[in-house]
């Protein structure tokens, strides 16, 4: 009995570690940027103008990474579109950064699904790297002080959107 107990005491923690730690997806890990200043970026929009995060200081900013080839992004697009309309009168910036995709495909996507937010082009993926993006969709909520308050991995729901915007406005 003692030997079995000893065996279980050693074997079970190893099994637990192998099952739950090594199999964890990096996307489940919390972002290293939470509570830290959001990396600044200045990117060209799909319509040729420019968007600077630094110039948005003082306003909450929602930064969404997406692509036309990402199926969940189609559902999320509707959530972003609804939020853009709902919070139109509030000083909130919602921007969608195109990830590993082409402007032409983004244009076609907008023609089909409508425009949710200004689309920013991150051609060298530098902004994606700066935000530690490990897949899409990923959404970062940045408060008025320019600090990342929350990162959502996967499809945004209207509930999460409302909850996080309420927190951003409160601050």
């Amino acid at each position, binding site marked *: 009995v003692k030997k079995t107990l000893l065996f279980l005491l050693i074997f079970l923690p190893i099994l637990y570690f192998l099952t739950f730690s090594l199999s964890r997806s*990096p996307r489940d890990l919390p972002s290293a940027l939470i509570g830290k200043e959001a990396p600044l970026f200045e990117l060209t929009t799909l319509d040729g103008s420019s968007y600077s995060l630094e110039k948005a200081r003082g306003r909450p900013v929602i930064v969404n990474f997406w692509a036309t080839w990402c199926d969940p992004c189609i559902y999320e697009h509707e959530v972003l579109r609804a939020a853009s309309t709902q919070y139109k009168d509030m000083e909130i910036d919602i921007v969608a950064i195109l990830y590993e995709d082409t402007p032409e495909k983004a244009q076609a996507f907008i023609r089909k699904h409508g425009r949710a937010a200004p689309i920013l082009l991150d051609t060298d*993926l530098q902004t*994606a790297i700066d935000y530690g993006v490990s897949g899409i969709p990923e959404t970062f909520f940045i408060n008025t002080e320019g600090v990342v308050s929350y990162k959502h991995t996967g499809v945004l729901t209207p509930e999460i959107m409302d909850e996080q915007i309420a927190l951003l406005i409160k601050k």
Partner: protein
Amino acid sequence: MSNLIRHREERSDPHKVGRLLRYTRNDILIIVGAILVIALQGVSFASELTQAQIERAEEIGSQLRCPVCRGIPINESPAELAVQMMKVVKEQIQTGKSDEEIYDYFEKRYGEWALLKPKTKGLNLSLWILPFAFLLLGAIFIILNFRGRK
């Protein structure tokens, strides 16, 4: 009709044909030159790195986890994100950053998860110590069992 005849005559004039060929040769030279300039611009970044720097970039890249792959380093991944990350590594080497600074750069963005070799500090120490501790315990366990049987 006469225009057509003149045109045929011009085309058959050997001097004119030679001039035409000369222009064509010049044009080809210009085009080849332009292609070379564009191609050289494309590889200028890579050629600025010395062999030692390229090897250092590969070594650093082999210690950074590709965020969109399963357990492979960025220097082995064909994923666009990994390729861009390797480019960042090379750029940072060029700007004189140390290995530690480059690892820190990625750790700040992706967290410690990005490092394939965890740092030997804090809780991570257990990752380095525990395997040896288990090995030692196993050896003691086997020796004690062996002695007990004797």
